[in-house]
């Protein structure tokens, strides 16, 4: 695949992640934080997130297997997972965490188990997606290109959209 194609693919893929709710603006922020001094910032943070989340998920599974469930502890874990996923921008994970916490408060073990499953699912999804994204990035870089700056792209798109909607309005109002 040539560079331009790679880049287009990258942009499309990323856009879809946003549209599907896997990522949100926070992820954009992360990208913006990356600079020359810290060129692998996003990858590092995301890896940290993966490690941490896996640990948390294991803890959660273990906690829910207990005879007498310690909901406080579970809540704490979920809270942490929620926090880290929101910092990364893993929106879907975050949403499930919210529901999870509600079940925790109600001390509903069924609900909790169901949520745990959902969280795991969402987590593995976002993990796969992000890994693919990074792979694409890597490919682009090795091909000698530069990563399209997503924020600019989205802004551009937004601008175009606005422009087009405005012009339409104008036409109608006339």
């Amino acid at each position, binding site marked *: 695949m040539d560079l331009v194609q790679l880049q287009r693919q990258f942009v499309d893929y990323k856009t879809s992640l946003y549209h599907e709710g896997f990522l*949100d*603006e*926070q992820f954009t*922020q*992360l990208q*913006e*934080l990356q*600079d020359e*001094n*810290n060129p692998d*910032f996003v990858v*590092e*943070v995301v890896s*940290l*997130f993966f490690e*941490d989340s896996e640990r948390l998920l294991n803890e959660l599974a273990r906690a829910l297997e207990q005879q007498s469930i310690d909901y406080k502890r579970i*809540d*704490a874990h979920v*809270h*942490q997972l*929620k*926090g*880290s996923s*929101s*910092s*990364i*921008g893993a*929106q879907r994970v975050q*949403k499930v965490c*919210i529901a999870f*916490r*509600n079940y925790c408060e109600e001390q509903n073990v069924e609900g909790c188990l169901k949520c745990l499953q959902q969280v795991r699912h969402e987590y593995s999804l976002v993990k796969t997606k992000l890994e693919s994204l990074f792979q694409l990035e890597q490919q682009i870089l090795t091909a000698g290109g530069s990563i399209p700056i997503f924020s600019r792209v989205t802004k551009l798109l937004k601008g175009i959209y606005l422009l087009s909607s405005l012009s339409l309005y104008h036409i109608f109002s006339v």
Partner: protein
Amino acid sequence: MATMRRVVQSSVSTSDATTTSYGGLTSCKAADIVISDQFPAGLRVLVVDDDITCLKILEQMLHRCRYHVTTCPQAKVALNLLRERKGDVYMPDMDGYKLLEHVGLEMDLHIHLFSIKTFVMSADGSTRAVMKGIRHGACDYLIKPIREEELKNIWQHVVRKKWNENKELDSGSLDDTDQHKRGHDDAEYASSVNDATDTSLKPLKKRSNSKEEDDGEIDNDDPSIKETTLELHQQFVSAVNQLGIDKAVPKRILELMNVPGLTREMLPAICRFGSSPCESDIYGLFLLFDFTLLSDLVKSIAPHPTFMQKFRLYLKRISGVAQQGGIANPLCGPVEANVKIALAASGQIPPQTLAALHAELLVVAMDQPALLQATPQGPKCIQVDHGVAFVQHLVKANPVAPNTSHNPLHLLKMLLQGSDHGPLVTLVRQDPNGNMLIDLLQQQQQLQKPQQRSTVSELRRSINVQPSCHVVPSQSSASFQAGNSPVSVTQNGSYSRTAVIDYSLISSQSNCPSLNTGQVSDAFLVVTYPLLLFLPSVSSCSVNADSCASQQVQTSSMTFKASRLLPGFVHSTSNIPDPYGSTKSGDLLNQEPFNDLGYINKGTCLPPTLAMERFFSENIGTRVKQEPSMEFGDNAKVGIPMLQQQFPPNDLMSKVNPVKLLVSLSRNTVNILIIHGWASTRHLVYGGNT
């Protein structure tokens, strides 16, 4: 819950105005706030979060804001970092809120002084959680995920507080400021906390503004904390009493108190003046003043809400405790203030107090109420101690001194607690010629007499200072020594007040040729336990820090905790170079920053230090606390509150490097008294490792 706390510290750069931004913020008088161009870059931030992902993100964000960041995944470690002591915290698993509390409790003064702002960050945006954060003293509550813009604005909290303080200083209408602030905060809080429903998908950017750590506010909202600390305080006091001054070392105290979870580090906080965190800012308040600015000082001290209110609160509380503490009450009054007050104050002061108040005399009145009375007896003694307070009137006595035109009356009230030593105040003045006037020499002599500790009556001395009294070091030392002998602290808690008067210290002037006392007569007031050290700033005195008897200080075995400095008042001596600042900041900071702060005024370093040294060495009985902590600002006036401690005898005569003295003093725990000083954070390098 995984809360994160971020402590923003204003960083201090003593000599180097450019390095740390916030350091550039010095406030002399309210108007003079200088902000360096790089502000707020360099603001020191300590981030604590158990979620390493967030930690990393925040670190990067803060780096981008050009703050100095230190990250820390554990509350324990963070607390240590703050205290500049590594790995020594005996704290069971601390969660974010506990850390917050501890920081609040122990670092109250620091918080005020150094504008340490605590922010709570959490993914939990519920009102309940926000409230909790606020109640624990957070300056602000940020909801995760945090956005960079929010972080960029944290510095304003630090600045705002400083500016408000300065405003208070100047206007004297603190109540207005407080109310305004409170009102403002409430409004903000109400509007912003609507929040954080978890169902919201977007990261919540709402912040709820907690009421800021407002040194003017009495923490009436948190009676539980107050009560707890009060109890702890009482326990502490009785423990100390039981052990006796000599043996009251932190370890034993802890054992006696037998409170689970209590650590050494918390002792100073407990032992201090107030019993509630909100009162802690009185603890370690140094009064530094320059005679030239004395009127400002008085003006600023008097209306200072924190001091006054808290002091009164404390007095009220104490007067319940101390039976004999008749003195406590009268003290309340005088603090109101104005300069002329001294007279007014004296009126309010029980007759025993002050004596001669001459316009041109330096008068130091020491008052040792209940404390003295109490013949040291058991636990009761301690209670009585609370009533100690003294008022001093200082009147410039030296005709030679250019600034004698002031008639500054300075009222100090200290309530000392828990110590058997009464406050001892000495005033030392340094005339423009660089000769230390042993103003207090007379005082000392007078003091020697009334050592009737056994008497129930307060021991009050008023000292008349003869103008242009020069003290020869040798003489003074001799006299001081004589005076010191009765000072021995007995187990029962009798104090030796006179011991405090180590004016020989003052005489040290001759020993410190390097001391350049160019200007105005500076006087420092040394008050022994609770020790108030006033080191008036020498406006353009350039002190050679090194020449002073640094060895003394260093070798001194006293461990002293500098009390925190209350930044409330600023006396500007901005033009005063800070010889010590740069050198000392490094040293100082690594001490236990809590509880004791000393600002050293360069100019005054010599005499006061000597005095202090001497005093401490001879008079102080036990070191209650071992952790050293000292902070000082360069230009700032320095006040060192000191608890009664027994310091190993030092050679008084040698020049003492005031800075070093402060350092050594700071190693003792100090129960300080009031320090009113210039609290430019610029000069305070507060802990932290970055």
